[in-house]
């Protein structure tokens, strides 16, 4: 067993040590290494997962990663999402943490290294302090490209520290979730326990009277949905995002019933009372800003 940091270490308070390109800049450098869906191999072009149109990346950036042919929402990497949401040069990332291999699960370290390469992230989360429409907040973004956006010890710890930092600095927290299965199998029971740890972090944050906005993107499932992601004071979702606990295939196999056509979509969740609203991608930043302004 590796010795781990036992207690509430909040975000570093040092000045920012990393900068993130803004929307404007990224339009000129569309070949940013990225893990959004539809990659073609050519850094200039992306293929629509839905209508198969080839889209010039500059266009895709301009259109917030929405296909202008068919309206399909591309899955965005955490870095792309960050650019979409935060005010220019305002993001200060948290102290970086990396996974260990607590179960000595075969192949796990390689997988981590691979994903770090692909996503340019230490783990499946990008988190830090940021400004959105001028309002300061803690912003966390789950990256699906990193082992399906699953929550191991690093994601759990970073989310928890994010809420603790929010309490310490009296800041609202915004988390953009998008994890496939939720749990990180390779960390076994440690992964499961992050559900408790993060849910408790949300609980303490709420007791401090602060505002937590949860934004669900495609897909938010399993242990991520069943912990911090569904505990927002307000929960928003992107259109058609898959939201649920059990995966649709497991549901189909278990129940052998006909699955409703929009099962587990954001629209389904809204109809069944589970989320507060659906917000289109181009309006997400303004909407988050507005909600932050209503909770000063």
């Amino acid at each position, binding site marked *: 067993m590796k010795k781990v940091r036992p207690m509430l270490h909040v975000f570093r308070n040092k000045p920012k040590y990393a900068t993130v390109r803004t929307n404007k800049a990224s339009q000129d450098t569309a070949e940013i290494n990225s893990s959004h869906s539809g990659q073609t191999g050519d850094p200039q072009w992306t293929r629509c997962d839905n209508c198969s149109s080839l889209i010039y990346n500059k266009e895709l950036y301009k259109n917030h990663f929405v296909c202008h042919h068919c309206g399909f929402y591309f899955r965005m990497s955490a870095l792309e999402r960050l650019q979409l949401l935060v005010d220019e040069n305002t993001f200060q990332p948290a102290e970086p*943490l990396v996974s260990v291999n607590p179960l000595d699960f075969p192949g796990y370290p390689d997988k981590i290294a691979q994903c770090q390469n692909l996503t340019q992230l230490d783990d499946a989360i990008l988190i830090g302090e940021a400004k959105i429409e001028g309002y300061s907040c803690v912003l966390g973004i789950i990256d699906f490209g990193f082992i399906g956006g699953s929550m191991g010890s690093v994601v759990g710890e970073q989310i928890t520290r994010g809420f603790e930092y929010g309490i310490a600095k009296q800041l609202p927290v915004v988390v953009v979730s998008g994890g496939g299965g939720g749990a990180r199998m390779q960390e076994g029971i440690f992964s499961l326990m992050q559900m408790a740890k993060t849910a408790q972090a949300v609980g303490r944050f709420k007791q401090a009277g602060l505002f937590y906005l949860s934004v669900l993107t495609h897909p938010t499932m399993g242990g991520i949905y069943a912990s*911090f992601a569904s505990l927002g004071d307000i929960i928003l979702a992107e259109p058609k995002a898959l939201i649920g606990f059990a995966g649709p295939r497991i549901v189909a196999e278990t129940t052998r019933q006909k699955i409703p056509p929009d099962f587990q979509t954001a629209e389904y969740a809204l109809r069944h009372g589970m989320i507060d609203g659906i917000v289109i991608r181009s309006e997400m930043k303004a909407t988050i800003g507005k909600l932050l302004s209503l909770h000063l």
Partner: protein
Amino acid sequence: MPTIFEWEKPLVELEEKIQELRNFVYEQGIDFKDELNDLERKADKLRKEIYERLTPWQRVRMARHPDRPTTLDYIKLIFDDFFELHGDRRFGDDQAVVGGIAVLDGEPVTVIGPQKGRDTKENIVRNFGLPHPEGYRKALRLMQQAERFRRPIITLIDVVGAYPGIEAEQRGQGLVIAECIEQMSFLEVPIICIITGEGGSGGALAIGVGDRILMLEHAWYSVISPEMCATILWKDVNKAADAAELLRLTSTDLLKFGIIDDVVTEPIGGAHRDHEGTGRQIKAFLRRHLSEIRKVPTDELVRFRLERFRKIGEYQTKKLSETQVEL
């Protein structure tokens, strides 16, 4: 027709032989005392060998033995009295979760747990012990009630997982698990969770946040079932035994990891071979742990509970030199 595991077979055969010999001795009136003692000793040795050597997968199968006591069996075995309470006051009464007020040494406690059926008919009523959201909402309601009356809460956990059904998803299975976890964390009464059989992922954790987390010797607790893990890793459900090995889901592993506080040893051969003995064991462990946490002041109880989970996680801080990558 009782289920006999392959590793139990030599033992069962030997036990049968001893019984036959004993009958023979009784009928014939001859003195075979020494031979019988030898055989008993041999059986004891065999038992110990078998049950010390059990693989994780064998222990998973022990946890699923059809004759293993269910939650209601345990309640009868452990407590003096039980008044069952029903319903979530919202939508339904999920029979896959039972709960109510029980009496332990004259003191009322709230007991809650998923309930499997013993046969097909019962399993249909109990949905094979797979709770819907209303089952978790019932659990939460009873836990909040327990808090109002300062009753300790005992959860008995034996659940493959939350039910992965259409209606369950529709009514917020994920959301209710999150709510249970969050709210259980802040309840100002002592909580003891005992994983008695299967501890399947979020469906178990939803009622698994406590001041003491105990586990029966042959129970398992994991983020994913061995079968599903095998399917994901090797697209082969038959390799579940290998997955069980990787997942470190036994009481031995989890005690070592500090996830659980104590292992309730089962009578040799497992709980299914001796219900009463298992009940007595749980009761003894329960008494000891409960009397310990009853002494902790309420506000500290919650603080300790939160700190316990806050500490869980295995990671490293990245060296700063490595972080100077321009994002």
